[in-house]
């Protein structure tokens, strides 16, 4: 009997197999319909074919339909049309086709049920996958497959103790190491990194690297954070390992969190099994790596030269050309617009390969490939000259959102916008979810450049927490968004997958294991023969 529900009526309804089937299939149908409708509305060629449903009560075209889960009625929420229908016909449940939220007329409230939630999510993802026009090597998008344990895996899991996938622990300041702690908390709350290490993908007890393996240190960190010990933890060996790997970051002086972040990414990458220098698919690159496209257009002949560079994060300038922050433009979106704005290159900086002369040109950055996790740094520390002492900190708060749509800053959409020429593009390939991100961690810095303090916010599911070295407190989204951010971390709402390929080192390991077994057999056979021969000799 499921306890993951707020409504006794849905439990009763689910006890009836036929009713359960009706409700679940209706929910799946309407949710799928809505995802598909939204997509086809964006496609000019398909537009006219989509008839809008009308409210069965007031006959107005429904822009936000609520569907009865018992019959074909669809209607408005505003004005109580759907609720009246439920009462009139003695139907219990209806759903908002956009969010899949289910309303129970007996409870007179929206309810939560784990099964309904699961049906909604899987229907949305399936519909989005089918819609995705991006193709890799002419294959449609790889479908998400729910993991079901094989008989062997199920046997291995028997008797295993399940722990919550929620772990939270303060980190001791080991002497000006708040920069380290803030970054580590952002790693710990990064769903992809967390899943990798909790999934035992780099087991520090089996790792072949003898010493200074940052990946092992991360594995140990996750073990500590997810252990039963609630006392703050001091990441001493991790600190020592980063010192050995990077001379600039060693010593007890305050370091820049962003510098440490980039260095840590590099260290984890280089100590990952199977990491490569080109097209690496280690956990770091799989998580953070995107691509930045730079288009340089010759103002004279229009020739465009394109370069593509890898990126692990995006550093955003806070000041515009004028050297000042424009008022009303102090948002993350404004920074991204500035980042992707064309920049004039003087004739001295550019000479066209096509028309041959030195001309004025414009250079524009855009994001060619979006990574699963987007990391932003606001460049708050500006250096006036080479002298570090003259660096100043820009304290101006930048507003950043809990949810971010990256479409307008991608190469694809920016090119579509240029073509359409009429304001924001609407007909670019979707689904929209491919561009949508949710904030999960923020790093704050207070004080000045050399004597400041780093703290951070991080989210688990829907709850926000504040981390100040060893002090961890429950907080709220509002508190987080009101804080002055130095770095922000966003994770893609729905992940996209590549077809699973067994990593080459696993294949090598397996063939080696097979070969070792054969060698053992041969040795055993040879030994048996020796024993036989010896016996025969004695006869």
């Amino acid at each position, binding site marked *: 009997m499921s306890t993951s529900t707020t409504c006794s009526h849905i439990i009763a309804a689910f006890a009836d197999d036929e009713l359960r089937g009706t409700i679940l299939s209706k929910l799946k149908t309407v949710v799928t319909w809505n995802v598909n409708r*939204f997509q086809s509305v964006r496609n000019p060629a398909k537009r*006219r074919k989509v008839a*809008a449903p009308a409210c069965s009560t007031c006959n107005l*075209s429904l*822009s936000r339909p609520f569907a009865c889960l018992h019959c074909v009625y669809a209607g408005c929420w505003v004005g109580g049309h759907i609720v009246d229908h439920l009462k009139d016909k003695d139907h219990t449940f209806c759903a908002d086709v956009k969010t899949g939220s289910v309303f129970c007329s007996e409870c*007179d409230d929206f309810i939560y049920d784990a099964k309904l939630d699961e049906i909604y999510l899987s229907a949305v993802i399936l519909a989005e996958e089918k819609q995705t026009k991006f193709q890799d090597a002419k294959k449609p998008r790889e479908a998400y497959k729910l993991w079901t344990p094989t008989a062997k895996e199920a046997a291995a899991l028997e008797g295993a103790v399940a722990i919550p996938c929620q772990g939270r622990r303060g980190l001791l300041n080991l002497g000006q190491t708040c920069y380290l702690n803030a970054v580590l908390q952002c790693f710990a709350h990064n769903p992809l990194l967390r899943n990798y290490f909790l999934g035992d993908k780099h087991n520090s007890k089996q790792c072949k690297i003898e010493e200074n393996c940052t990946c092992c240190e991360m594995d140990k960190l996750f073990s500590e954070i997810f252990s039963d010990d609630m006392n703050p933890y001091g990441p001493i060996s991790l600190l020592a390992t980063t010192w050995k790997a990077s001379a600039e970051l060693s010593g007890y002086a305050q370091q820049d969190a962003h510098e440490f972040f980039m260095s840590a990414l590099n260290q984890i990458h280089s100590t990952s099994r199977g990491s490569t220098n080109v097209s690496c698919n280690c956990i770091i690159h799989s998580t953070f790596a995107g691509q930045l496209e730079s288009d340089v257009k010759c103002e004279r002949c229009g020739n465009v030269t394109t370069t593509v560079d890898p990126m692990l994060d995006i550093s955003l300038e806070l000041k515009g050309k004028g050297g000042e922050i424009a008022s009303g433009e102090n*948002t993350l979106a404004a920074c991204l617009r500035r980042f992707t704005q064309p920049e004039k290159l003087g004739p001295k900086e550019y000479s066209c390969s096509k028309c041959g002369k030195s001309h004025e040109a414009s250079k524009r950055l855009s994001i060619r490939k979006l990574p699963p996790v987007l990391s932003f740094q606001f460049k708050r520390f500006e250096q006036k000259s080479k002298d570090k002492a003259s660096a100043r900190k820009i304290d101006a708060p930048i507003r950043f959102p809990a949810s971010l749509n990256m479409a307008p800053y991608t190469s694809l959409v920016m090119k579509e916008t240029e073509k359409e020429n009429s304001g924001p593009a609407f007909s670019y390939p979707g689904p929209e979810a491919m561009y949508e991100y949710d904030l999960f961690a923020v790093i704050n810095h207070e004080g000045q450049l050399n004597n400041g303090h780093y703290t951070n916010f991080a989210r688990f599911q829907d709850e926000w927490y504040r981390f100040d070295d060893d002090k961890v407190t429950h907080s*709220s*989204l509002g508190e987080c*968004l009101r804080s002055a951010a130095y770095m922000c971390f966003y994770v893609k709402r729905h992940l996209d997958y590549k077809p699973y390929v067994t990593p080459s080192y696993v294949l090598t390991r397996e063939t080696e294991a097979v070969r070792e077994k054969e060698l053992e057999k041969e040795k055993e056979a040879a030994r048996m023969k020796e024993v036989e021969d010896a016996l025969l000799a004695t006869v």
Partner: protein
Amino acid sequence: MAPANVDALYAQIRKRMVEGGEWEQIQAALAAKLNESGWVDDLRDRSKERARNMDPLSFQTLLEQVNPNAQTSVPLAVKREIISLIRQYLEKQFE
């Protein structure tokens, strides 16, 4: 224009907007502007923190409580820009 006629006209235009996709387009523009202004997050945070301390928790009650502030806190600039988009659409319809 008699009220009944206005209602009929509204229903007709609304149908055209929803079927033609302009409704979704303008709604998407509204959502993006409201998000960038912080309005969406503010509403989400207020609703959540209010819900946390509400006993018994009820959607209708919560909506009644947060709706007034939500309506009045829509930034004027956003209102103006969206009204202008709607106006542009309507003007095209009546050309």
